[in-house]
């Protein structure tokens, strides 16, 4: 039953649309236009959660994004959403919401029992406890984890999708309150392209909570409606409600997330629309009209359910027609809360207003408020509230007029709703996302954004400290006029005339009070909370300062102040003020902590947009892709490419398939798709000189029709890429790179040419996807090619190993390269990519009589490892030089130009003889295949030492230093060789080149396996097979 729902003119709920919902399984009713919070309050539900550390009962404190307590879990199953603020959840029919704290239940919470030992759990207590024994830590962590935490992450895939939109308006107005609407209207009327965003479903900001103002002779509701109607009629305006601008980046790039369908019953959502949309807005000018949030006062037991901000009490009443209590106590340091008191009184509540200022408000306001039936007590504060699971009263204290001291006890007041107001805190977050800090305005008792903004960003309204409606609209008019002028538009806007507020406008100065004194030393009275979500009390902040944390950033980290999903919106300023007092410094000097995106939490889905699943990264396919799919290939991703991994026949696993493919390659003929390797076309009179500079080997003598393996070093002398480069003409070369390194190498080459060698006449073109490459491999490869190619002399004398020829293959113009990554006779047939699929299929047909076998990257890896050929990035890691690889033959020290990397090879460290060097490894047991990545250890193998862990620190307690071994390298490549009938491996081992024949051990998961260092060339060391 909606016991707290009353008649309230101008409320924004729609009584003709009742809504049924459940909370923790219990059924309730609300209305369209309610938030979950307003509907719960209407039904008298107050306790929504249990606090993080102490398990104290908690209820709703705020009415929007600032809510720290009332977090709920929405729905269950794939659509569940954790950690939503009930104040921001728009009610829909059939909603199921759940509390997220309290174990085993909200009502009976075990942690609250612990909370009675709160004395022993001040801020940071866990830094000083749970020290020993260390082995109990996993248990402590498990228990603590389960006791804390809000909500459960979904475990099912998200059934909905998200997308991104980019915008480039002239003016982006952030905030759809009075000033934001007015700013948007001025700019729109001036003909500029305007975007207006606001986090709420309805625009109007504070005007939705306080209907008393009269603007331009009409009610504020009518004024807002008229403005919005005009905005919506203009084609140069995009107005987005339910859209939170949560980040402001450099260059006026704003990210905003729009909740397109969160408010719609899940079953009724449009499946063709995203659930949420991320807007990336690059505006020429931004207008920040983000307003201000009222902060509460800090006093004992201020966390009881039923204690709220005055703004929240007023909002629930005027916007949602919920009178959250009938006996209301309002505590204030300023005039604004008088509006809440007045409105609640006219709504039939008994209201007592406790003003901390000795003089209270000015007579006009004081009289007007008393006339409405409000009892006003001046010069008093609240020492502590009383109540169990709901506030039932408060103990007042008499305050010194000037100092924060309680000079006498005050009356005890009964109440069922306690509202407090400590002043307004401007929402400066977006302005400060660039790392700047707001300035403390002593007159306004607020951290404000500068009224002059900064280049490209105007700040208007409450965010600069203009808390009075007329002043705010006037300042807005001036600021936006200036923005329009910068964009070459003239504006003739008249500031809207404000009239007819029910309470007089002139306000008495607010009192600078944050923590209301209770007459006791801090920490000795009832707990006074500053940050509700993290259970940070005023005493914790003073403790941090006592423990000598002087910087406000350290105070924040030590206590937890400002962490959490509310990011300190209600707590930060109070916390800074309390810290300042403890430090003996003015608040302005203590300052604020750093503001960072996001202003409020953003779903990962919204951030990812459409870049999930199949569209997470672009997929690149070789031209013959369908042929591979048809033959049952399994694929692996190499960079963005899909490469066939192996081609299993029915019943084969990876090993069976690879053994068969590898044997076919060495005994008959097999074929691999090598289209994905990077290919760079290099031309120009200085092409040779260029190659000499970027490769370690020599290119001056390479004649047209010849290919050479090139080793590319970085300036540290380390191998960064490799590949075969072929001479197609005296000034024309084709460079190949690794598949994964293609883009990186092209960029590397471009940078050198443009920044260091602009005088070289060299032209680079990426042709990776212009050419398709079929590698025909094996003793019968020539025979296969001969069937399809008649205009190239394929005889071994005419077409030698490392030659290349142009001709026609299967009727298609082709370049044929006699290069081999397997050590077998092999030809790589390159054709225009459009013929790639055709060429593959034609070669397969021609090879049928030789049982031609398609193979993938796994077999490719095995074949090259058997020959000791490196794979950059697997056998190298950026710290391996050509000398380490035993490839001194690929380094030409005689070239006139000091090629890239050359000088570094002479560095003392690069020339060490005990560097990790590439060797082959043969296991004692030929059936054992070493694990790639296994560490190689020194010391004796020996039986009985197998269990000793390697290289761990003093915590293992598994024995003394004698048992620990040192890692001297690792296994980089390891496979079973079908051809040899045993395992082969490559490894990088300290000084390995001089240790052939020695036995080392590979350590893997506690097991040691003996292996002997051998030459990395396991098959055909003389290279006869590739020369046939």
């Amino acid at each position: 039953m909606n016991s707290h729902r009353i008649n309230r003119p101008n409320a924004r709920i729609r009584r003709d649309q009742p809504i049924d919902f459940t909370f923790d399984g219990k059924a309730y009713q609300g209305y369209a236009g309610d938030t979950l919070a307003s509907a719960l309050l209407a039904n008298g539900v107050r306790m929504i959660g249990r606090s993080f550390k102490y398990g104290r009962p908690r209820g709703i404190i705020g009415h929007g994004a600032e809510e720290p307590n009332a977090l709920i879990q929405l729905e269950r199953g794939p659509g569940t959403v954790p950690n939503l603020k009930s104040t921001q959840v728009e009610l829909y029919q059939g909603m199921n919401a759940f509390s997220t704290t309290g174990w085993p239940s909200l009502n009976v919470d075990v942690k609250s029992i612990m909370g009675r030992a709160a004395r022993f759990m001040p801020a940071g207590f866990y830094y000083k406890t749970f020290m020993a024994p260390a082995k109990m830590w996993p248990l402590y962590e498990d228990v603590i984890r389960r006791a804390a935490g809000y909500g459960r992450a979904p475990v099912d895939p998200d059934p909905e999708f998200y997308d991104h939109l980019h915008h480039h308006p002239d003016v982006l107005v952030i905030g759809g309150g009075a000033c934001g609407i007015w700013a948007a209207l001025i700019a729109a009327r001036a003909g500029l392209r305007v975007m207006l965003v606001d986090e709420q479903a309805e625009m109007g900001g504070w005007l939705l909570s306080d209907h008393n103002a009269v603007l331009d002779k009409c009610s504020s509701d009518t004024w807002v409606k008229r403005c919005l109607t005009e905005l919506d009629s203009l084609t140069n305006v995009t107005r987005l409600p339910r859209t939170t601008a949560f980040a402001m980046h450099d260059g006026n790039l704003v990210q905003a997330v729009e909740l397109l369908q969160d408010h719609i019953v899940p079953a009724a959502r449009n499946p063709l629309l995203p659930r949420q949309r991320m807007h990336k807005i690059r505006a020429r000018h931004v207008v920040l009209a983000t307003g201000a949030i009222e902060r509460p006062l800090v006093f004992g037991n201020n966390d009881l359910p039923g204690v709220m901000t005055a703004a929240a009490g007023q909002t629930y009443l005027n916007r949602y027609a919920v009178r959250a209590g009938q006996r209301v106590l309002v505590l204030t340091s300023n005039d604004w809360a008088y509006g809440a008191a007045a409105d609640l009184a006219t709504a039939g509540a008994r209201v007592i207003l406790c003003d901390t200022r000795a003089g209270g408000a000015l007579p006009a306001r004081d009289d007007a408020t008393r006339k409405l039936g409000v009892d006003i007590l001046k010069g008093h504060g609240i020492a502590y509230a009383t109540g169990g699971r709901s506030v039932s009263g408060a103990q007042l204290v008499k305050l010194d007029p000037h100092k924060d001291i309680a000079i006498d006890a005050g009356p005890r007041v009964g109440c069922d709703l306690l509202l407090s107001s400590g002043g307004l805190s401007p929402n400066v977050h977006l302005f400060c996302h660039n790392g700047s800090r707001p300035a403390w305005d002593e007159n306004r008792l607020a951290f404000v954004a500068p009224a002059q903004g900064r280049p490209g960003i105007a700040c208007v309204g409450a965010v600069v400290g203009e808390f009075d409606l007329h002043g705010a609209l006037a300042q807005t008019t001036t600021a936006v006029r200036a923005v329009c002028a910068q964009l070459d538009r003239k504006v003739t806007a008249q500031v809207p005339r404000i009239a007819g507020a029910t309470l007089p406008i002139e306000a008495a100065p607010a009192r600078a009070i944050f923590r209301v004194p209770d007459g006791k030393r801090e920490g000795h009275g009832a707990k006074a909370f500053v940050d509700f979500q993290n259970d940070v009390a005023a005493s914790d902040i003073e403790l941090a300062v006592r423990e000598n944390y002087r910087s406000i950033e350290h105070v924040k980290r030590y206590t937890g102040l400002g962490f959490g999903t509310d990011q300190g919106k209600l707590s930060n300023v109070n916390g800074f003020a309390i810290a300042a007092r403890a430090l003996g410094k003015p608040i302005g000097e203590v300052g604020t902590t750093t503001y960072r995106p996001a202003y409020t939490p953003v779903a990962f889905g919204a951030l990812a947009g459409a870049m999930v699943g199949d569209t997470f990264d672009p997929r690149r396919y070789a031209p013959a892709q369908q042929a591979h799919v048809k033959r049952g290939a399994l694929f692996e991703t190499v960079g963005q490419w899909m490469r066939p991994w192996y081609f299993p026949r029915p019943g084969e696993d990876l090993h069976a398939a690879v053994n068969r493919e590898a044997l076919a390659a060495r005994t008959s003929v097999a074929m691999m798709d090598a289209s994905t390797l990077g290919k760079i076309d290099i031309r120009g009179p200085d092409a040779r000189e260029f190659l000499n500079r970027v490769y370690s080997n020599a290119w001056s003598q390479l004649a047209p029709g010849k290919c050479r393996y090139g080793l590319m070093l970085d300036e540290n002398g380390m191998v960064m890429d490799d590949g075969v480069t072929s001479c197609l003409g005296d000034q024309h070369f084709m460079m190949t790179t690794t598949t994964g390194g293609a883009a990186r190498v092209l960029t590397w080459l471009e940078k050198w040419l443009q920044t260091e060698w602009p005088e070289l006449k060299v032209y680079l073109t990426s042709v990776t996807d212009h050419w398709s490459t079929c590698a025909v491999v094996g003793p019968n490869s020539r025979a296969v090619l001969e069937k399809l190619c008649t205009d190239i002399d394929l005889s071994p004398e005419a077409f030698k190993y490392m030659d290349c020829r142009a001709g026609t293959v299967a009727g298609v113009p082709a370049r044929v390269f006699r290069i081999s990554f397997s050590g077998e006779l092999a030809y790589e047939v390159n054709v225009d990519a459009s013929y790639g699929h055709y060429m593959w299929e034609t070669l397969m047909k021609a090879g049928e009589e030789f049982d031609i076998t398609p193979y993938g990257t796994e077999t490719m890896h095995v074949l090259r490892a058997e020959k000791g050929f490196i794979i950059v990035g697997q056998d190298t890691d950026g710290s391996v030089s050509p000398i380490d690889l035993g490839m001194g033959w690929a380094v030409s020290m005689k070239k006139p130009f000091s090629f890239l990397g050359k000088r570094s090879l002479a560095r003392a460290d690069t020339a060490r003889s005990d560097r990790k060097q590439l060797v082959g490894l043969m296991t004692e047991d030929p059936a054992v295949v070493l694990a790639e990545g296994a560490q190689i250890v020194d010391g004796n193998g020996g039986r009985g030492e197998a269990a000793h862990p390697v290289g761990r620190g003093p915590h293992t307690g598994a024995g003394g230093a004698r048992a620990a071994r040192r890692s001297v390298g690792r296994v980089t490549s390891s496979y079973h060789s079908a051809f040899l009938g045993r395992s082969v491996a490559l490894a990088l081992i300290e000084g390995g080149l001089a240790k052939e024949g020695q036995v080392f051990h590979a350590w893997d998961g506690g097991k040691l396996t003996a292996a002997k260092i051998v030459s990395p060339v396991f098959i055909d060391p003389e290279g006869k097979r590739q020369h046939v």
Partner: protein
Amino acid sequence: MLKFHCPHCNEVREEEEFSYAGEAFIARPAAPDGASDAEWGDYLFMRKNTKGWHWEQWLHSAACRKVVAVKRHTFTHEIGGCWTLAEGKRIYLEEQA
């Protein structure tokens, strides 16, 4: 997210189209083989690392693929300007004078 006016494309483009290419105007020693380990190490590793105006290179990788010279304030991320390498070098040398 920064924006750059690419002098080659003659348009303002988003940072996402570019990739960072290191401090600008670093000259590779003309005779590396004669440089000491210290001198060579200086070239390889030592950078100005200015807190303030910084001359750097960005490659317009998604478009013209030209390396441009950018003057960026490393604290405020204000962009002082984007020029061709030649023009940027000229301005840079003027500033040093």
